[in-house]
């Protein structure tokens, strides 16, 4: 496993905690499916906690875009919290902070949905 993900619910908001490397491999497909599952259950407000993510590449970023598009199409959003240095660098390089709302803490990200 290159990465692990667990999730918890805060009111009607899902907090997805990721760790390891998000590189678009088969285990990352599980992550996409997990987001689809949330959307199907009408849980469309999702925060990803990136603090334990060591590294993410463009394929990982593609997963986030895919997730965000799915949730936005259902009236929700995917918001990012606590990006690690590597993730922040990638978001900066690709100028993706214009696409995602990024927060310093999970609480701020959760509150932003209220």
């Amino acid at each position, binding site marked *: 496993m290159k990465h692990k993900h667990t999730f918890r619910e805060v009111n009607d908001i899902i907090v997805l905690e990721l760790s390891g490397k998000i590189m678009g491999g088969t285990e990352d497909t599980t992550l996409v499916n997990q987001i689809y599952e949330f959307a199907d259950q009408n849980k469309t407000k999702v925060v990803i906690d990136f603090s334990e993510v060591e590294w993410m590449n*463009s394929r990982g970023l593609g997963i986030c875009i895919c997730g965000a598009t799915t949730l936005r199409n259902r009236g929700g959003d995917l918001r990012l919290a606590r990006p690690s240095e590597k993730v922040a660098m990638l978001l900066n390089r690709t100028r993706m902070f214009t696409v995602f709302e990024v927060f310093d803490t999970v609480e701020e990200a959760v509150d932003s949905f209220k």
Partner: protein
Amino acid sequence: MPNNLNPESERLRKALDELVALNQIANAINALMSVDKITQTIVDHCLKKIQASQGAVFLLDERDKEADKFKTFIREFSTSTEKIPFHVNESLTGWIIKNKTMFASNDPDNDDRFKWMHLTKLGINSILAAPLLSRTGLIGSLILFNKKDSEGFTEEDKRFLGIVGSQTAKVIENARLKEQEQELVAMRQEMMVAQSIQKGFLPKSGVKLQTCEACGFNIPAKEVGGDFFDIVRLNDEKVFLSLGDVSGKGMPAALLMANAQAVLRSHLLGSQDIHLSELARSLNHLICEFTSPEQFITCLFGLFDSADNCFRYINAGHEPPIVVRDDGAIEVLDVADIVIGVVPEIVYSVHEIKLNKNDILIIFTDGVTEAFNEEGVQFGDERLKELLKGCVGGEGASVGEQILTTLSTFRGKSAQTDDITMLLLKVS
């Protein structure tokens, strides 16, 4: 004494017949046959030996053993034009999956196991079936219907079909492996063709103008990659450079890459006046419109103009290029807009860098900086900058070679995980 000899000679004759029939099957099947041909041959021989009027082999889908078994008998080979009714097929195969045993029934309508199927109404008066068991479990069943004489299937028939069934499973498994191998070989050949087509998209050589020289390198991590680069001489003064990295890998990325490169090239045809911003808008619009959200492209493209030695470019979320100045200074051109293919209505800015004699511009994909060594350490920006400090005054091609050699040494035995692509432009 002759009376005692007759049954014994009859038994020996039958045993000999059985051996001959088994030998015939063994001879009829060879290692090069397909699964279809093997099963057909086996059914034909069994019908002939046992004198039944119809026979079939049902095979489980080997890739989906956990799925609903009733639906996974994907292959059916029948020797008769009369198709076995679907519900009978399902009921019998279901029974076999459950019981995994040999069975015979010469009066199925009065047989507790099958009477609910009302087989005689469907023209089935007797059944003989053998499971096809391999080391990995049940792979299917071999079933014969309607013994031609009125006595029905005998114990000898049962034994014969049992022997054939046990051998058939092994033969089919081998043939399936052979088929899978052939599929892999065919797929590999297709990939090789795709790779050669893709290579054809990339420039065969660099471009040399009076004031500059440009060259490119591309080493895909898989057979087909998602990186591209292009060097196009527009006239004696201008050269167009483009380099991109498509998200994802393999065939989908390669197809998107070919599209992006075609869009960029189509704008260059017969045009002396290229509007970089318009080109970016057009490419972005197309990729947004025709691809799924997770597919995007980071790319950098621009024009080097010998008239003022300026490189004007657009950076769509790509790795910042590096300029190695003649005096040894390393400059990272860290200005960019968002990647191509995510936000439809966006205006891309054109940036400009003045290059002087002997300066080298290096545009590269993240396959260069994100190479991992055996300890999982990344090559990184700093190592690249350090390496480039030692390349001052070198020729573009030799600097490119040096980067590739250093990356290969750094990686050691760890595999190349991403495409490595570079464009180098040296002002002379």
